[in-house]
């Protein structure tokens, strides 16, 4: 647990499971799962049979954004190891690619893949890119570095975010004028946060997440 408590904000959340409590925190505070630490609290005796899981989370407030915008110093040993891993992985998949640093932020390293086969490496709905990124982050976790790696190609991440937000607005318009709620396709916490944030100021509708798994669905509901 973090010791410098004055640097962190704390909040408590409850859920039927640890995962649910975490998801609530992610959505309510609009932060990423990687950006906070959790402490599991002893269950409160509340109802007769339902024991909710209580968690306390520690997170950086506000200031972190400024911190993140600053370029982090070059950590070339680490970067070379990660670039080597991604390049070799793609090579063993049977493709040629050039992997380079896209951005350096506090605790985040952005990599870019340049390849003639970039459309395959991105995959449908970015699933291949996401898999490469996931495995790279597991590898990075083993290097004992407090870093997260974001892997992009052909600016896919930004285009994907824009596509989600456009779709959210379009659906919100339809809900507002038809008066009927609509369920969006399943999305991960990061994608859902984009939608909730984008539609926060949209008049005449509200957004709610449905479902239990990591990939919940957002429902856009008209309000009278």
């Amino acid at each position, binding site marked *: 647990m973090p010791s410098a408590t004055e640097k962190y904000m704390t909040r408590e959340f409850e859920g039927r499971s640890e995962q649910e409590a975490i998801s609530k925190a992610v959505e309510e505070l609009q932060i990423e799962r990687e950006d906070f630490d959790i402490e599991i609290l002893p269950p409160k005796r509340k109802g007769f049979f339902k024991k909710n899981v209580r968690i306390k989370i520690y997170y950086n407030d506000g200031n972190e954004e400024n911190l993140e915008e600053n370029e982090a110093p070059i950590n070339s040993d680490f970067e070379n190891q990660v670039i080597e891993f991604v390049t070799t992985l793609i090579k063993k998949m049977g493709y040629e690619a050039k992997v380079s640093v896209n951005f350096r932020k506090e605790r985040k390293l952005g990599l870019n893949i340049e390849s003639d086969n970039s459309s*395959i490496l991105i995959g449908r709905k970015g699933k291949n890119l996401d898999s*490469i990124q996931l*495995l790279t982050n597991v*590898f990075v976790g083993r290097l004992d570095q407090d870093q997260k790696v974001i892997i992009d190609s052909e600016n896919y991440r930004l285009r994907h975010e824009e596509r989600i937000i456009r779709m959210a607005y379009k659906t919100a318009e339809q809900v507002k004028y038809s008066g009927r709620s609509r369920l969006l396709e399943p999305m991960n916490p990061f994608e859902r946060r984009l939608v909730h944030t984008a539609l926060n100021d949209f008049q005449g509708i509200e957004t709610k997440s449905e479902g239990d798994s990591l990939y919940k669905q957002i429902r856009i509901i008209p309000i009278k």
Partner: protein
Amino acid sequence: MEKDLVEYIVKSLVDFPDDVAVNVVEGEKSTILELKVATEDIGKVIGKQGRIAKAIRTILSASATKGGKRAVLEILD
């Protein structure tokens, strides 16, 4: 080759890379890759809710295959 790819990925993720073994079984339409790792490492290869195993399978299916055969990954325990 797929065997090489799986070995590379798995060896980068586990604590006991020397215990990683991939046995290739050639079928008519698919290639089956039987993966064996140290007992302590099984969780690392599968991941929470199977996320890591799923990512390895996704990458496997995205890799350029020779002869258009499908590669299937089986994790033995």
